[in-house]
Structures are given as C-alpha cells and as structure tokens.
C-alpha cells in the first residue's frame, strides 16, 4: 500500500513506490486549487503580487467575495467617470531607479504601465494603483477604507453614466471580436462590474467620451494559435460633448508646442485650446506607450478661425503619432481606425470621426460640402430638389444646391454644363465634352472636376457664375429651356434635378420651367471619373 508524499493529495497513487505523475502531469490538481476568496498578494512569489492576485481574483471570484475585486471595480469606474486619471509611464525611466530595473528583471513586459491617480483628492494627487496587462488595474497596497469610500462617493454622481459608457466600450470591443471573459480575467471583471448593464449602441463612446491611455492589456486575438496578446488599449472616460468640442476646435491653428512634446490647436489669442501629446522619449522608448495621441482641452481665450478646418496641417503634425502606431503593428488607414475603436488614441479617433461625419463612408461630397460638414452641418439624406446622388461604384456622388442656410448651387452648375451641350455650344466626343475639338472650358478652366475624389465638382468660376444673376439672354430662350427640362425629366434624378435647377435660375423669375416640347435623345455618353452619364442635344439642332 502506498501513500503520496504530499500534503492533501487524495487522487490515485500507484502501488509501486517512486515517482508518479501528479494529476495529468501538467495542470494543477483540482484539490489544490486555492479558495479564490482567500488570495493574499504576500504569498505570491513575484513583485507583481498585487497584480497577480487581482488577476486570480477576477478569474475565479465575484464582487463582494474579495476586496481586490471590489477595488478593481472602483478603480475602473473611477477612471471611466473621470475621477481617476491614467498617467502612462515607463519603468525604465531613471525616476524608478533600481526598483524599476528589478521589476523589469522579473517581467520586461511590464515596462509600460499607467499610474492611476486621483488628482483632485484631498491629498492633492493620490496614487490608487496602476495597470498590468492581465488584470488591467490593480489597487494600491496602502489605501485604507476611508480613501476607498471617498473615491466611491466621488464617483457616485456619475456612476450610472459611467456604467453606460463602460458598457458601450465593452460592446465596441465585442463587435471587434476582442472580448472574452473566458479567456481574459480583466474582461470577466468588467462583466461583473457592469452586471446587467448592456449596450447595443456606441453613441456615447463616440461623441461623449475620451479614450485615454494606453494601458497594455491582454485581449483576445481570434487566432487559435495565439488566443490572447498584450496590446495597447484605451480606456473610456466620460466627457460629454467631446466630439463637438474637438470638431469646433479644428477651426483653430494647429502648431507644435515649443518643447515639441505636443501638437496644439491655438486660438486667435495664441492660447492652446487643445493639446495632443507627442511625448519626447528616449531612443529605446515608445511614444505611443507614453501617451502619444492623447487629447486634452485647454482654455480658449480668443476666436477660432473662420475658414475651412486646417486638416492637412494637423494631419502632418500628427504623423509621428501614426508612425508610433505603425511601429506597434497598427494600421492607421481610416478604415482601420474606424473599425478599431478602443485601440487608437483620441486624437486620431476623433479626427477620423470628424472626417467620417463630414463625408459619410458611402458618399462622395464636393469640397465645399465637406467644409460645411466639418463644421457640423448635417448633410441631408432626405430626398428633395436641393440634393441628388448618383451611384459611382458603391459610393454615391452627391451634389447639393442648398443645405441649411448655405447655398452651393452644385446641381445648378451641373445643369449649366448639360445646357451647354443641349444647346449645341459644346459637343460630346469619345466620352468627353469638347468645344471645337478641345476639352470644354469655362473662364479659362475646366467647368467640372473629373477626378475620383471630386467627380462632378463645379469649378470656382462656374460656381460664381451660377451663384450670380443669370444672363438676360438665357431668359429669352424659354422654349429651349422647356425642351431641355422635358428631355431630362426621365433621366437619373441628378440630371433631372440639375436641368430643372438650371432652367429655373436661367428663366429668372424664380418659378420652375415646365418640361414641354420635343425631347432630345440622351444618346451622348459622357464618361467622367468612372461615371457614364448620357447627355442630349436639342432635337431641333439636327444630328
């Protein structure tokens, strides 16, 4: 008869003395699993014992069963509600001296971490814990009950909004396939913290929150060969109106901060109304890890600009942030940023959202319309005589005569071009609009842009022409205008509306021109920027 020379081992022991495999020979025998309610950091053989214990507790326990679980929840809600602030940092920095080096000896993957600080607490800046990739956040060893209570009270007024935001953040990650409570301990902890709070939308996340960090966190990858991986992740922080505020500040002047540590958006008084971090770091350090792309707002003292947002300048200044992301293996094209909410710093995320709002993914707008959209003016989607779209390879080229109080007369301008062809002034040859064998022009330049980015965009000269009063000679050609309107009545809505818009303007009375008389054949193919539009000549002109 044999006995295992082990404390509390009741599984089968072979009859022959000597070595035998424990359990399956690899995994912890079930009877040795510690009670998750009794984990104590002191007993874990690592300096990251508090992080390790928090991970184990989140994996196996539940709120109320272990102080670490509850403190995790308070820290998380503290960050999301904006009471606690994440401060990215680097263990290799000299500030951490030999302690940092010792920690890196144990785990060099812990190099980049975020301190979790309460900046407005009674002590004027109190560390509540820090981040770690397996537990997301771990609590301070020396915070006492009164301090945790004070934190809970500070969160209380914003707790319900924080839970909504946190649920949306989870939903955003879930939609990307980056959520699995079975695989990732901290995600189980977030699920428990959220309880019954479930989100089906991400609207608050997109417009009323910051995404701050990063925190290096283990996330699911969807790859069975490597189910999880530590990646930089941005945590949500309540900030109502953030998107609009950022969008409005794009009117200001982008510039580099004097010390090079940030990009600023400056108002007319030179005050930095917004600051986008571009930290200056040691050669072997990661700017992304240390907060590149984090956005904060300052005090506006002067007026913002009136013109179009200076996006190109801002994009150029933010190129280091994109490079930092690419260095971490993150694609930075619009589609990736848009699809990867939670994995990109705020500046890029919001900038992409502004551009997306200005140019919804499925629409191609003229540059004038884009400027208006960047200013927050909504591109109308309802059908009216003032807007028309035409399909161009999956996207819809959109022209607008009027949006809100802004007059663009884009349809009218297109109508002008159609009229010049209809009247015989211009011809269509080999898919192009020509005048006497040469490409058609107006006021010394092209009438319409013909590139894929801005197909059918009227030139400035054409825009000015149709914005002014019509030449009186046009009003004397009513019959021609009537045949013109009649011809395009059965065409695509864009051509129909363009013809009617022009005719109404040309007639000069403000009333619509009826479509009457003989209709021309729309047999003239005009190929422009991937589109093919069939134009017509006045039938009275003959072949």
């Amino acid at each position: 008869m044999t006995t295992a020379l082990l404390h509390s081992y009741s599984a089968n022991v072979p009859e022959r003395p000597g070595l035998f495999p424990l359990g399956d020979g690899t995994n912890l025998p079930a009877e040795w699993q510690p009670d998750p309610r009794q984990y104590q950091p002191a007993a874990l053989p690592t300096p990251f014992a508090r992080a390790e214990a928090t991970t184990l507790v989140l994996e196996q326990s539940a709120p109320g069963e272990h102080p670490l679980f509850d403190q995790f929840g308070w820290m998380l809600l503290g960050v999301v509600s904006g009471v606690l602030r994440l401060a990215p940092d680097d263990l290799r920095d000299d500030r951490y001296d030999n302690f940092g080096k010792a920690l890196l000896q144990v785990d060099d993957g812990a190099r980049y971490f975020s301190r979790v600080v309460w900046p407005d607490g009674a002590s004027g800046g109190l560390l509540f814990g820090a981040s770690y990739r397996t537990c997301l956040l771990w609590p301070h060893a020396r915070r006492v009950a009164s301090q945790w209570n004070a934190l809970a009270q500070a969160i209380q007024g914003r707790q319900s909004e924080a839970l909504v935001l946190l649920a949306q953040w989870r939903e955003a990650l879930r939609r990307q396939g980056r959520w699995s409570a079975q695989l990732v301990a901290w995600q189980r902890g977030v699920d428990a913290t959220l309880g019954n709070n479930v989100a089906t939308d991400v609207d608050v996340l997109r417009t009323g929150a910051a995404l701050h960090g990063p925190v290096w966190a283990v996330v699911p990858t969807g790859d069975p060969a490597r189910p999880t991986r530590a990646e930089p992740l941005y945590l949500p922080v309540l900030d109502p109106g953030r998107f609009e505020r950022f969008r409005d500040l794009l009117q200001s002047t982008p510039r580099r901060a004097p010390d090079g540590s940030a990009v600023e958006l400056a108002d007319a008084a030179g005050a930095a109304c917004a600051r986008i971090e571009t930290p200056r770091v040691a050669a072997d350090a990661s700017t992304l890890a240390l907060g590149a792309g984090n956005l904060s707002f300052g005090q506006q003292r002067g007026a913002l600009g009136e013109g179009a947002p200076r996006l190109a300048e801002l994009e150029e200044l933010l190129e280091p942030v994109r490079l930092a992301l690419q260095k971490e293996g993150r694609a930075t094209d619009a589609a990736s940023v848009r699809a990867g909410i939670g994995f990109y710093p705020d500046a890029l995320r919001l900038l992409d959202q502004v551009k997306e709002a200005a140019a919804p993914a499925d629409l191609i707008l003229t540059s004038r319309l884009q400027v208006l959209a960047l200013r927050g003016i909504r591109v109308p989607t309802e059908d009216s005589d003032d807007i028309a779209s035409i399909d161009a390879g999956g996207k819809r080229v959109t022209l607008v005569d009027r949006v809100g109080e802004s007059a663009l007369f884009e349809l009218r301008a297109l109508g002008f071009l159609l009229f010049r062809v209809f009247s015989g002034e211009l011809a269509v040859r080999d898919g192009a609009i020509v005048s006497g064998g040469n490409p058609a022009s107006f006021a010394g330049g092209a009438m319409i842009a013909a590139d894929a980015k801005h197909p059918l965009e009227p030139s400035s000269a054409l825009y000015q022409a149709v914005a002014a009063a019509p030449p009186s000679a046009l009003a004397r050609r009513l019959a021609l205008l009537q045949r013109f309107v009649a011809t395009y009545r059965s065409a695509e809505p864009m051509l129909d509306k363009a013809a009617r818009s022009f005719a109404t303007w040309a007639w000069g009375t403000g009333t619509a021109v009826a479509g009457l008389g003989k209709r021309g054949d729309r047999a003239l193919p005009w190929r422009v920027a991937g589109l093919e539009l069939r134009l017509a000549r006045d039938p009275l002109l003959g072949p």
Partner: protein
Amino acid sequence: MSRTLISVGGTGQHVALALARLVYMGAVRNDVRLIALDPDNESPLPKLLEAPAGMSGDRHPLGTGQVHAPFDVSRFGDASFEQLFVDEHHPYERELFEAMFDEDMAGIPVHKGMYGTPCVGATVFAEGANGATFKTQLAPVANATQVFVCGSVVGGTGAGIMHKLVTEVRKYFQGPMYGLFMLPWFKVQAGAATQGAITDATIQRNATHGIKYFFSHTIPALTSSVLVGYPGSEQSAVLKPLTLGAGDMGEHPHYLHLVAAHGLTRLEEAHTANRSVKAYGVAHDEAHEDWLLANAWEEPRGRSLRQVIRAHRVLLNLLRFLVAEKQKNAMLGYYKPGFLTGLFGGSRTAWGDDLHKSVESAEPTQKQQGVVVEQMFGELEQLEREVRLCVDWAQGLFPEALLRLPQGDPMLDALQKGTADQWDAIRKTWAGKAMPPKPTGKLTGAEIARHHARAILDEALKG
C-alpha cells in the same frame, strides 16, 4: 556528466546536505556541484552546509558549500526591504514601491530572511539578479549537463526566488533543468512566534499560493519537477512530524529530504520515459518503508543504499577504534621513541606491517615517521567526523529495524567485541595494501590515512 544543484533557502540547504552525504558515501555520483543561495549565511544551517564535518573547499562533496546571498549583502548590510530600493532622490520610485508593498513587508530585515513572504523574496532576488555578483554566481551553470533547482515553495526565500531563478538560469543554460520542490514538511511551534518568523498559518498560505503559481508559471519553464511534502497527519517509522521553534535555523534532517534527493536521481529517467509529464509526486510504500534503502541509487556496482550505509557504519566503528586514545597513543608511542615507548612498548604487531610499510614509504627515518603518523591521525580523526556525519544521519532517518543491517556479519560481529578482534579485522583489511613511495614528491600522513580508510570501506562493501 556534470550536474549543478542550485539550492534555495533553508529547505534547499537541507536537501543539499542530504545529497552531500549521499555523494560522500558513493550512493550518488560525485558530479553534483552546488550553488547555494540564501540571504542568511551566518546561521548554523548555512555554516553546516559550508563545511559539513569540516569538509570545506575541495573536500566538500558538492564542490563547495558556500552559501551566497541573492543580493549584494556587503552593499546593503542590515537594510530593510524598503531600504534596498527607496531613497529621497526618487519620489516616483517610492510611490510605486509603497503601492506594491504594505508597511509590514517594507520593514522586513531581509538580511535575516524573507519572513515567509514570497513576494518580498522575489523582489529581493530580482535586485540581486541585476548585480554582477549574482551573475558571477550563476555563470558555472553554463558548463553543466543538467541543472536542478531545489527549495521550498512555502518559505519566503525559496518560494520567492524559485520562479525568477529558473528564468534567470535559462539565460545561461538551455539544457535539461529539473525542479525538486518541497511542500510543507514541518510545523511551527504555536505561540512562540517572534516578530516576522514563519507560522503554521504562513506555511499553509504560502503552500496553496505557491503551488498554484508553480503550476502556472514555473513548471512550464522546467523539463520536469518532483514535489515532496509531508502527507497530512500520517506518522510512521520514517514519517515523523516535525515541529520547529520559531526562528530555528539549525539542521533538522528528515526522511523527505532523502526522498527529494532520490528525485534528483530519477527525474531524467522519468522524463525520458514520458516527455509530456511535467510534475511528479513520490509514492511511499507504507508496508515496506525501507524501499529507498533497498534501491541501488547510483552506486557504480549496483549496491543498495542499505549496503552503502552498512559499509560506512563498519568504517565508522573502525575509525573510532583507531583514533581512540589508547590506540592512538600506542601508534604514536611506537613512532616517537623516547617518550611513549617506555610506557607502551615498541611493537607494531597490532596494526601490522602493511600500515608500517606505508609509513616507511612516506618517510624512511623513524624520527620523521612520527610526524607522518601524527598527520595520519589528524586525517583519521577528520575522516571519522565525516563518516559519522553520514552514518548518524542515516540512523536518524531509519530505525534499526528498517536499516536491517545483516545479522551474522563477521565484520559487524567483530566490531561488537573487544580490541583484539578489531585489530584483527583491520590487519586483514590492510593486508597487501601498503602504499609504495610516490614517484615524485612525498607521501603524506593524510594520504596514508585516506588510503587505509578506503581499504576498510572497500572490504566492508564486499559484505
């Protein structure tokens, strides 16, 4: 083949001492080289390991028994844990340290040990692993064929250091690395805990956490490992519960240390038979508790541990006889005429001509022969201490009923009787085994002693 044993903490030293005895007796091959780590190298246990029965330097069965602190002790002296890291010039460092460790941990005087706090042990070790001293200590593993790390998963030092040690060793050594891990093997006396000393509750707490951590993090980094601990409340002839006073830092030999040493000799074979198994326990035969005595271990001629212990007991008896005052004076009297000769006579009949020839080989003139014989006795006395270290240990682990040394053994029987029979046994053992002069240099008395003691042992091993 060269095996390096890295022992960690007090438990590691206990297993190392068990192995030192087994190597000394020839039950385990003499290719084990020790690197011993413990912040405390002043207590009786590390002092014993450094020079068991006076065997230090090249004489040590494990190459060396020097116990090294895992951090540069000369630099930090008696600093507390916190003082190893925190200073007034680095406020962020202080802030992070205080976040990770509470006040009690911060105040641990780590030069005395880790007070059963593995997270402190792990951090102190990480600091030491940064230093040149530690890198120098570990460098020899690069020459090893196999590495064994040995210690407790319940104390502060062993448990705290073990995982990081394994990963650190991997920087120098990519070959097979095995673990010998001790689970709780003793209890702490209740009610007598001094500040910071380990308690039973600490041991149990550390055991549950340590095993969990071990399976999650450490096992995957090792080729395979064996875990050994005291099985609950069982008691038997060899399984004796051990209760230690708080802060007791002496040696307390236990059967489980022998079991751990047995693991060192079996893990390679077990791994070859089944490479998928990473963690082993040891099954103990309750009906035949002498099963380890019946095993052959690594003795080159396949003798059992029982036979090896028996032979050393024979040797011990004869050495004790030889170095006893009466016998010693008789020999010295013969080789130092003019003083003792008158009292004890001038005959060497008792010990025979063969020993005398060895003495003559060392020194032809009688006057100088006295010096040689004095040297010889010095070495015999040292050998007696060494063999006693091993035999007493074995007799402490196994009762006589289990040692079951053969009855009717002429050699052993002779040892029970009077002087004449012992001299007879010795003369017969030494017959034809005189040492010739060395081709170059002089024979020393110590060499003569070792040669003739070896002759006794070889004869005893035949039995």
